[in-house]
């Protein structure tokens, strides 16, 4: 009874907190996540209608998502922190049970439960008894997903209390994620075609086994859930007491300039913050393992890319550079004469470039090339990363929890893990893009690419850094406010839109809503079709025109699309104070 009361209370508390949290931009992130998740869930259910091997593989992917996702994406859902209840004198088991039930409240469990409807579909296709078994199987399977996620986060959290733990877990996590990314290598190695049988025997496959008539699997799921609950309860009681940062090797600060001081501060943070230790070793391990895994097939062609991959991954890991420092930004605001961005860029470079250069040169020497391409990518990516890290973190700032206020889960640097994930992916793509010019020139013209790489690298470092600096100068107080309150200021934007007259609103809706149609399909894509001689193509108007009018029509659509966007922007543009 008491347990039931605790769990119900905790679940209601979580609902209340989510209602407050899912406002403004976070509601958008959550909404985007829910839509993507629903698509994946629908795909999984679809597999239940086709091939049960694929369905088992699908659930294995969901399982890995639950285990690995939180480790890379901000420590998992922790709306209810265990610390909130530490004064209530709950037994660890009761606390874990309560937290478990509240962990089922949220977008991710709901989406996963939808995906697990595939079990019901599979059951119905087999018979009545199988369909009946599917219902408890769904619940137990979801419990196992959630609990495995909680236990893995707790284990990594414990590891992150010591430097060796942080480094080892970084190496392991990087290796696992790289192996998943290169799964084809292992398929080829084992001559495997189709789905490996192992997916049936992972805990993610047990629900499906039970539905298919192997009833023991249902008991095994229940037992596993109980064991995991016990393990989590034990880990929760060990989490009390915040992580102690290491206190060894204090060397005095030697620099004599403001820039030098920022570099020294950042480098100390890199070496002393165990979460940053973890991120750095993770990126390193990911780069090496990803590039080296084809070696098991006897192919070393990917090896030279270990360094470049490391740079891209490390940039993604640090995409919320300013957010992780929290409100310490006030010191930057109070010392406007010093340039924080330049110092941080230098520090990023000195923490990552030596590793990247050694990796790249050593591995490329092993394979004997392709030197021009690799040496073009290296400076381009390094410059791109040092430019984009401050820029993206200053523009896309995800408010973090101040380091001294963080709870027992060291991976949890922000309440908005959806935002962190989005920012990391954005950084991956943007950093890759900065190397495209150098890469293309190197492929086409060889050594000229190196010069291009150096030029674009320097330009990105300088230019993006300048933009980041300007952003900090002009919007510094607003960024500090975001970090202090944890909310992005969408109020002014919304306010502005609300102020528009009804006609203006309608015009803006039409322009933003439909501007893409003339611009992209009827304009750009139609022009591409015309250029490739693909005529009379479905609804692309330009392809139906007589020869002399095709390009002008496509161009006119491009102009129309741009004009619609321009009108939209003009209608909602900020007016000077009225």
């Amino acid at each position, binding site marked *: 009874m008491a347990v039931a009361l605790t769990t119900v209370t905790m679940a209601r508390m979580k609902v209340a907190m989510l209602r407050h949290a899912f406002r403004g931009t976070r509601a958008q992130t959550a909404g985007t996540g829910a839509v993507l998740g629903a698509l994946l869930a629908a795909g999984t259910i679809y597999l239940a209608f086709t091939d049960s091997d694929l369905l088992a593989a699908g659930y294995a992917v969901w399982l890995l998502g639950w285990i690995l996702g939180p480790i890379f994406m901000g420590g998992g859902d922790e709306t209810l922190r265990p610390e909130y209840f530490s004064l209530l004198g709950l037994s660890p088991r009761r606390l874990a049970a309560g937290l478990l039930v509240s962990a089922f409240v949220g977008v991710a469990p709901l989406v996963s439960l939808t995906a697990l409807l595939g079990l019901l579909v599979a059951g119905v296709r087999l018979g009545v008894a199988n369909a009946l078994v599917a219902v408890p199987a769904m619940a137990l399977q979801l419990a196992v997903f959630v609990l495995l996620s909680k236990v893995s986060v707790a284990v990594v959290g414990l590891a992150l209390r010591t430097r060796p733990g942080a480094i080892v877990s970084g190496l392991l996590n990087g290796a696992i994620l790289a192996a998943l990314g290169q799964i084809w290598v292992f398929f080829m190695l084992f001559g495997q075609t189709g789905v490996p049988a192992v997916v049936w025997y992972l805990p993610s496959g047990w629900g499906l086994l039970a539905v298919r008539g192997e009833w023991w699997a249902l008991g095994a799921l229940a037992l596993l859930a109980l064991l995991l609950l016990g393990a989590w309860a034990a880990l929760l009681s060990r989490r009390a007491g915040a992580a*102690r*940062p290491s*206190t060894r090797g*204090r060397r005095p*600060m030697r*620099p*004599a*300039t*403001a820039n*030098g*001081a*920022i570099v*020294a*501060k950042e480098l*100390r*943070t890199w070496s*002393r*913050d165990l979460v940053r230790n973890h991120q750095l070793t993770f990126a390193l391990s990911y780069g090496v393992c990803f590039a080296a895994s084809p070696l098991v097939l006897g192919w070393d062609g990917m090896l030279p890319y270990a360094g470049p991959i490391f740079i891209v991954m490390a940039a993604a890991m640090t995409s919320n550079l300013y957010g992780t*420092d*929290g*409100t*310490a930004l*006030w*010191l930057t*605001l*109070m*010392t*406007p*004469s*010093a340039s924080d961005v330049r110092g941080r860029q230098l520090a990023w470079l000195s923490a990552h470039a030596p590793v990247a250069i050694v990796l790249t040169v050593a591995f490329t020497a092993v394979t004997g090339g392709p030197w021009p391409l690799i040496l073009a990518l290296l400076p381009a990516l390094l410059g791109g990363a040092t430019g984009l890290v401050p820029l993206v973190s200053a523009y896309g700032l995800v408010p973090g929890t*101040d*380091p*001294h206020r963080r709870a027992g889960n060291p991976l949890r640097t922000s309440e908005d893990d959806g935002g962190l994930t989005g920012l990391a992916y954005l950084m991956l793509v943007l950093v890759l893009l900065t190397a495209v010019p150098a890469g293309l020139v190197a492929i086409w013209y060889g050594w000229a690419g190196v010069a291009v790489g150096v030029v674009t690298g320097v330009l990105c470092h300088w230019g993006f850094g300048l933009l980041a600096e300007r952003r900090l100068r002009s919007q510094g*107080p*607003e960024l*500090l*406010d975001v970090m*202090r309150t944890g909310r992005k200021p969408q*109020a002014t934007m919304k306010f502005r839109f609300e102020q528009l007259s009804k006609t203006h609103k309608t015009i803006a809706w039409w322009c933003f809503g439909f501007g893409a149609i003339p611009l992209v399909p009827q304009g750009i894509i139609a022009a591409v079709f015309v250029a490739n001689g693909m005529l009379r193509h479905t609804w692309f108007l330009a392809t139906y025109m007589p020869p002399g009018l095709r390009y002008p029509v496509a161009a006119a659509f491009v102009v129309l699309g741009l004009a619609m966007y321009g009108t939209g922007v003009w209608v909602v543009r900020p007016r000077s104070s009225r």
Partner: protein
Amino acid sequence: MPRILAQTTAMTFSLATPEHIMTPALEISGLTKRFGDKLAVDAIDLSVPQGSFFGLVGQNGAGKTTTLSMAVGLLRPDDGSARIFGEDVWAAPERAKAMVGVLPDGLAMPERLTGREVLTYLGLLRGLDKEVVARRAEDLLAVLELDGVDKTLVIEYSTGMRKKIGLATALLHAPRLLVLDEPFEAVDPVSAATIKTILRGFVAGGGSIVLSSHVMALVEQLCDRVAVIDKGTVAAAGTLDEVRGANSLEETFVELVGEQDNGLKELSWLSH
């Protein structure tokens, strides 16, 4: 200890020059801030004369922190302006911010540095000479009794120690104005006495201080000027005697901001 204290005071705080006597150390005019529907600060005007020890008192949520944040350039006001020794905080931030030392309430520091490293870092950011920074850091750590924890990172500091290192960063560049948000909160009595001595010495040396607090006794003890902030406006301002009249500051304060019909209630279920 007193010897070091005297040294610091003499070294750190310069006297105000005569031509600046007329300019207020801090002048706030019409500062306004709205958070959503709530008007947090409603067109506040305040003037802090040079050499004064100015206390800002008010209930929780009255708008003290918001006002001080806007006054030093950490929060952009919706309207109004703030000038430090005549320099506009928003138009000439470099000159204005060089003259002020700030202790904000509850903001983060460079957490993975030791106290000494924080001071070194900030001193260099402020453009001070390396040797000067080292000497001042040594003095400040000794006076604030933080020199015994030289291997401890700021993230491991207690709340009171965080206040003290915050105060050290505010004093480090020998500013002419100190803006301190709740400087005595969570500070033990011995350290509080030290801090009071430092602050009095700072004012005696020609510096000006604005501090916010909701401990009336403390404000009465330290400040010569007071402003009472209530619901985002100035309920009363002037010299300490002008504001409190014949009563104590606490009585005046309750009279000014307390709800008339809302007498003191007791929690009857607490008695056994």
